[in-house]
């Protein structure tokens, strides 16, 4: 089996089991508040890590390149309450534009 399919099947099984755990096991019980606070914070922690690695990592190297400008422009758009599609489009255009202006540098 290829690695992508292995990930599809395993991640699917894990997610389906987690979604079903409440309705099958914990009927009419509540999660302790500390546990639910930790679960809530998993989302910003992991998303921020994905943003950081996808923007600054190049293999095992940390690099500041055109992707960082894209992220900065996207963040500025998001803070001005731009719709998601505009945030994406502006980030993409900023990165592609900088690469077009300085070919070879900041790939």
């Amino acid at each position, binding site marked *: 089996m290829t*690695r*992508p399919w292995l*990930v*599809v099947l*395993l*991640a699917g099984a*894990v*997610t*389906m089991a*987690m*979604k*079903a755990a*409440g*309705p*099958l096991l914990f*009927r*009419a*019980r*509540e999660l302790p508040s*500390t546990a639910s*606070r*930790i*679960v*809530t*914070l*998993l989302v*910003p*922690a*992991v*998303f*921020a*890590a*994905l*943003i*950081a*690695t*996808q*923007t600054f*990592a190049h*293999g*095992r*190297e940390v690099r500041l390149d055109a*992707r960082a400008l*894209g*992220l900065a422009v*996207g963040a500025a758009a*998001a803070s001005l309450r731009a719709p*998601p*599609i505009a*945030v*994406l489009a*502006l*980030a*993409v255009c*900023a*990165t*592609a*534009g900088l*690469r077009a202006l300085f070919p070879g540098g900041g*790939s």
Partner: protein
Amino acid sequence: MRGVREGARAVLPVAFAIGVAGVSFGALAASAGFSPAAAVFMSATTFAGSAQFAAVSVLGAGGSVAAAVGAAALLGARYAAMGVAVAPALRGPAWRRFLLAQLAVDESWAVAYLGEGRFSEQRLIGAALVLLAVHVATTALGAALFVPAAGSLESFGLDAAFPALFLVLLWPHLRWRSGLAAALLGGAVALLLVPVAPPGIPVLAAACAALLGLRSP
């Protein structure tokens, strides 16, 4: 039946955003070496955008299968919390509750919420079926549109689209001080580990930032 229709109608305004995310996921999966069939199958079974994005990104960045599944599990953990909340509203035998539990994702969960801790099973079903249809169809579209020519993703700046998409998903969580702190710590931990740890591990390790939740609010 009325509740099902109400739920479907209530979720329509966010269906467009879900569609954009679906197309992005399809393209990201294709660029990470997933076949269109694998991407579509994942959207239909995992049916959890954030967990799918995390797993595919980690594998695409050269991470191991275990790290990719681990990343999906971390982001799937909140569905366990949502499942506990929605559990009393789901009726019938275990197999039926298992299937209905799969439908509780962020937007359908919000639409099904009636207030005071109560949820509507019918609204959940209506909203989730719309979301599932849009999610699967747009994943197929994104996977089909992606052209796997080396370098094309970068020359069009499309590699900047995925961090921007995660930024859109992250943004609402930054309104709370605890969410902002977890994001800053998580990002910093991941970057510090990039030079020393194999791909995928920095993202998993960053999840420790969620332990900030141990402090009382």
